[in-house]
């Protein structure tokens, strides 16, 4: 199974989360919706704006995301720097737990 070298972009105040395929950074892409309108696979386009079949990223509102059955089943593993490769759903569930904890800590009084 192919492993994607991945990084995460997150804007916490508006819960904008993207799991990026870092080897395709800066390429053209088109969103392929799944779940709600904020949930998109980002599919690479070539110079003729044709889909290449490669995935540039996954964009969603991670804190509130609960449509796990809608998540596409991909034959890929995603590997964040210094971490083990994981299937998409496992990685997103782990990051959701981590970011929810981070938000809860930030909101709690010191």
């Amino acid at each position, binding site marked *: 199974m192919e492993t994607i070298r991945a990084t995460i972009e997150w*804007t916490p105040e508006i819960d904008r989360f993207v799991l990026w395929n870092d080897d395709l950074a800066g390429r*053209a*892409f088109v*969103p392929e919706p799944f779940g709600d309108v904020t949930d998109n696979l980002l599919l690479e386009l070539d110079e003729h704006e044709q889909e290449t079949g490669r995935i540039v990223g996954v964009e969603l509102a991670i804190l509130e995301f609960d449509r796990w059955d809608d998540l596409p089943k991909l034959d890929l593993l995603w590997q964040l*720097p210094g971490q083990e490769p994981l299937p998409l759903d496992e990685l997103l569930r782990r*990051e959701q737990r981590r970011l929810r904890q981070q938000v809860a800590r930030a909101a709690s009084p010191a």
Partner: protein
Amino acid sequence: MEPEPGRGSAEPPRERIERLVAEGQMPRAAVEQVERLWQERLRHGVTMPNGELVRITLDDLYHVIVDSRIWRHPERIERAIAHVFEIRRSHSGRRQAFSRWTKGTKALLASIILEPGNRLWSLHLIDAKRMRRYTRRGGEIIWRQSERP
């Protein structure tokens, strides 16, 4: 396995763009051009045809420009917002706007997600097939531009 310091954690959009420039994955000149455009035309917001102002922070800008069709043509951000023709209700108070305009003989379509406070959550160039997929999801139409006679 523990995340590497500063790498396994989530990056804000600005840090990501700075890293991509440093790694040579995005041209510095393109990012600087987009930043100038933001200073001159975007930082006070862009008005949609229904009169509402869309707010664009620098982080929103850095998020939107990662598509090469945007960073090569950053004027498309303003055009997309200024040519919104339909707005639909989405979840969590967000709204989805659809936009279309032409550049020469090329017709362009965009999907724009707006936060409840009208901050820009995302802006993607799409094709007619994607627009149909989005609209089939059936968000309630809350504004649509009148057809001109």
